[in-house]
């Protein structure tokens, strides 16, 4: 090995603490980069190949009922490749071991297996036997949630009659990668299951023989989706079509896309933050190193080493540190990406969700960290290159100090001599001091941004389930019912109060933008299912006329208060109405549109109808209520608030804790990296000065207070800044994760500020103690003898 490289290795070893600290910060950045990129890639690849293999459809629509002969006309639409007509019905399930009713979605499949759109993957058991009408394939998650095995039965309430369905296999479909009941926000595998059933058996149970109520189709390459949808909607309009949607709005696909977008967004922003901090630390350490090695550099130049060689020597420093970080980060990122796949396996149902780390991802991780290294090294390297050797031979002139600003305020007399040294030193290197403050502040901010999601989640849950929703149970009818239904709800066992609701499927259109969703008709001031403006938690009063829409929906349609939107009602005669947007409210979950219930009924030219109700129940009589609901044919679905909450917490809490653990770890790495480096730098620069002070009689404690006092001052300045930046960073996180599904509240609890401050103070004190140990072993004579 060349002597100069040996020097490199030994020098690196000499500052190993700092080098490792910087490597770790780089590693964290690379971990994030690799984790998010590889998770994105793995998820995206699994999605693509799954869609391809199982022929995931491009357009989806449900309708009331159409005769089978319509199928050919649909198939003849220009651009349509394959058409699948199905019977799809939601029923109430009575599952053993579950007192409350669950919802089952029955989907027809052909008696004999063929290549169809949205084809089912059999995970266990077998395909149905076309001659046995009660056989079903159930989606795997539901089967696992209930410990089913092939041969078990599940009871469905079909048209008022209980019917035992025999589970013969577990299946998966690209249509249900994210299995969520429409209208709900949280997946619940226990209370929502998908069942594939022989077509004739299903059709005869629901009077659908010779007809269908669901169409999915695939497009030919180059086909124009918009036009196909328009044609399709026109064709099925008279059959009660609810408006076709493209794949991009299909619930499962859309949820998965939101996740993929989030991964990509975070994966592009967060690693850069870490790598910038690493570059800054490298800059500080390397600049100091060049200044310490001033005379060595001069000697090397005198010996005939070219400027380029010297520059390369110090660049290699940075590269070695960056490469170490990249290697650790790649390993860590791969491990965490893999772990992320395990988490995704809970959320999404894929036949094979395998982790893959692309070489290109690794290469980009390495290249970006090396780049961060080179950028961090740049000024130091330039300084080494430009150092005139003749001048560098002479000892460095004493650093220029000035009376500090604070002292000039006239309180000089109040400051002790050590305090003056601290202040002047901070002021002498404003850039470095500022950078240290920035670094420390950033670790505080990182902690806040990394942990506030717990607060946000708490806030969201609290608002959603304690402030907004006061109902215990939500009942949805199969068809809109007359006013009498309200009294029937009231008469159900244990029911205390009933709040009627009328919900209609509609397409809202404004200019060229449109969106399909349900408009909820609620009382003027709903008491159970409240509409809240979440910024101040004030209950919203629904005006006698006009729509109240959630901010997210307003953004999608680009509408604002006072705009008039076209409401295409996807019911009955499919009336089209013009409705004014009366209000826009901010909500945390989902897309919603509300109307005062009577105003909605007027829109429909109906009176007193309801499509369901929100009810409060005497808890002691819940089981009795459930028994009745399970057997009531007009009830299409029952949603239980408690169950929803529980399921949400189960899904998210565990993963959130894991994420928080890593965020704290990563922020701790930054805090230690910054503070430890700052302390070591000061020690390195001032060991002579401090030793001199010891020689003239200062105690160890006194010189420690000079060195650590500087850190303390910087930390104290940094923390409030960090709290502010943390809030800003939290806002950034909220924006990055702002999907159509959720919009997280920017809620940072005092607890989070306190904990972040405490964590950084701990890291500061620990780093200070480490440096203090060095300070205590300061060799007085040696230090004074050596020439700086």
């Amino acid at each position, binding site marked *: 090995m060349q*002597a100069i490289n040996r020097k490199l290795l030994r020098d690196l070893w*000499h500052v190993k603490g700092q080098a490792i600290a910087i490597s770790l910060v780089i590693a964290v950045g690379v971990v994030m980069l690799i984790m998010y990129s590889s998770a994105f890639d793995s998820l995206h690849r699994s999605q693509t190949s799954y869609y391809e293999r199982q022929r995931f459809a491009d357009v989806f629509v449900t309708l009331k009922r159409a005769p089978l002969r319509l199928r050919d006309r649909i198939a003849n639409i220009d651009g349509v490749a394959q058409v699948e007509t199905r019977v799809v019905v939601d029923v109430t399930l009575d599952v053993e071991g579950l007192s409350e009713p669950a919802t089952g979605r029955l989907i027809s499949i052909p008696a004999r297996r063929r290549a169809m759109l949205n084809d089912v993957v059999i995970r266990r058991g077998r395909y149905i036997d076309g001659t046995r009408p009660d056989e079903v394939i159930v989606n795997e998650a539901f089967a696992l949630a209930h410990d089913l095995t092939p041969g078990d039965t599940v009871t469905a309430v079909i048209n008022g009659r209980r019917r035992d369905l025999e589970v013969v296999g577990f299946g998966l479909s690209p249509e249900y990668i994210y299995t969520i009941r429409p209208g709900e926000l949280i997946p619940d595998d226990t209370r929502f299951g998908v069942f594939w059933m022989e077509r004739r058996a299903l059709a005869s149970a629901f009077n659908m023989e010779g007809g269908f109520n669901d169409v999915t189709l695939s497009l030919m390459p180059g086909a124009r989706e918009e036009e196909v949808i328009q044609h399709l909607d026109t064709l099925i309009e008279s059959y009660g079509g609810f408006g076709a949607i493209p794949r991009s709005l299909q619930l499962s696909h859309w949820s998965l896309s939101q996740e993929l977008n989030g991964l990509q967004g975070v994966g592009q922003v967060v690693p850069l933050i870490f790598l910038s901090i690493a570059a800054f630390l490298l800059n500080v350490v390397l600049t100091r190193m060049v200044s310490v090695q001033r005379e060595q550099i001069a000697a090397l130049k*005198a010996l005939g*080493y070219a400027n380029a060689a010297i520059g390369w020597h110090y660049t290699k420093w940075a590269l070695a540190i960056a490469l170490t970080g990249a290697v650790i980060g790649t390993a860590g990122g791969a491990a965490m990406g893999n772990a992320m796949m395990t988490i995704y396996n809970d959320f999404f149902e894929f036949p094979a969700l395998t982790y893959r780390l692309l070489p290109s991802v690794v290469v980009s991780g390495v290249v970006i960290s090396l780049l961060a290294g080179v950028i961090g090294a740049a000024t130091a390297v330039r300084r080494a290159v430009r150092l005139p*050797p003749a001048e560098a031979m002479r000892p460095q002139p004493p650093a220029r100090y000035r009376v500090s600003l604070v002292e000039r305020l006239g309180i000089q007399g109040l400051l002790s001599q050590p305090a003056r040294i601290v202040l002047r030193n901070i002021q002498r290197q404003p850039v470095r001091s500022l950078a240290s403050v920035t670094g420390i502040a950033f670790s505080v901010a990182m902690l806040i941004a990394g942990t506030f999601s717990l607060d946000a989640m708490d806030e969201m849950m609290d608002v959603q389930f304690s402030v907004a929703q006061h109902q215990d149970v939500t009942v949805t009818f199969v068809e809109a019912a007359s006013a009498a239904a309200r009294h029937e709800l009231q008469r159900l066992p244990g029911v205390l109060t009933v709040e009627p609701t009328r919900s209609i499927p509609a397409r809202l259109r404004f200019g060229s933008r449109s969106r399909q969703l349900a408009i909820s008709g609620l009382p003027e001031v709903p008491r159970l299912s409240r509409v809240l403006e979440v910024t101040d938690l004030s209950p919203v009063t629904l005006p006698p006329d006009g729509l109240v829409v959630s901010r997210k929906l307003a953004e999608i349609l680009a509408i604002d208060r006072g705009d008039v939107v076209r409401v295409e009602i996807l019911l009955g005669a499919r009336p089209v109405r013009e409705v004014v947007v009366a209000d826009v409210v901010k909500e945390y979950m989902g897309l919603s549109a509300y109307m005062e219930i009577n105003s909605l009924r007027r829109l429909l030219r109906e009176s007193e109808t309801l499509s369901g109700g929100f009810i409060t129940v005497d808890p002691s009589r819940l089981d009795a209520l459930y028994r009745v609901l399970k057997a009531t044919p007009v009830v299409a679905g029952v949603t239980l608030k408690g169950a929803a909450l529980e399921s949400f917490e189960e899904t998210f809490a565990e993963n959130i804790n894991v994420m928080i653990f890593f965020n704290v770890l990563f922020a701790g790495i930054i805090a230690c990296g910054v503070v430890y480096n700052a302390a070591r730098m000061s020690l390195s620069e001032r060991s002579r000065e401090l030793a001199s002070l010891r020689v003239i009689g200062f105690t160890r404690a006194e010189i420690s207070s000079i060195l650590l006092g500087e850190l303390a001052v910087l930390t104290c300045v940094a923390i409030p800044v960090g709290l502010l930046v943390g809030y800003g960073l939290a806002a950034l996180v909220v924006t990055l994760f702002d999907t159509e599904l959720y919009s997280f509240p920017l809620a940072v609890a005092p607890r989070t500020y306190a904990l972040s401050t405490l964590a950084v103070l701990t890291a500061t004190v620990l780093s200070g103690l480490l440096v203090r140990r060095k300070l205590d072993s300061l060799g007085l004579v040696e230090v004074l003898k050596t020439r700086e």
Partner: protein
Amino acid sequence: MTATDSSVATRPASPNTSGPRRETVFEAKDITKVYHMGEVDVHALRGVELTLLESEFLVLLGPSGSGKSTLLNILGGLDVPTAGHVMYRGRDLTTAEERELTDYRRRHVGFVFQFYNLIPSLTARENVALVTDIAEHPLEAAEALAMVDLADRLDHFPAQLSGGEQQRVAIARAIAKRPDVLLCDEPTGALDISTGIVVLEAIERINSELGTATAVITHNAAVSGMADLVITLSDGHIGSVRTNDQKVSARELEW
């Protein structure tokens, strides 16, 4: 011993010039160096002229601030004069580019500094290897160290060596490339008498055995006894130039 006194170095006849004709290594013509230190201009050299021949031993005397180091740095290609020319074997160093100067230092110049400027993280052998790694026909590192009597200290780090030993490592490092010129800036400045003499002996040996043109800066007048040529600088001028008829060996020096 003959001496002349002139502000411009008119070279007196040296005993060595009577032998076979030797080539001129350095020829400095009217060099001036001005440093800009903040708002003041420091005139380090004011029109210095000098000639150094092959295998000649030059001692530069003078108080601190007299311009000795500046002159040496200019001769060694570490610095360029503000005005005037320095020729090295017919090549003009003053018009050379940085790359050429580096090349010049790498091929031809051996430097020894007052504070040794060893790389503390490298052993004696490795410090010498710094040079042998990049030189064209270097000595073996061990061989160079043997020439300064450090054959048994090869794997010691600078911190494990005495000042005199460190300076000898620096000399070994300087000569390992078989330089054409050896430039020493106060090589004994940080050393006591006896250690200083050991170091001077090493330099003397290189000069006589390898025939390396040597320039040594010192403020110790006694050292000038070793020289063929003694130039005294004061305030950027050449104060005096003299040649030694009778050189004294380093061992015989006293101060």
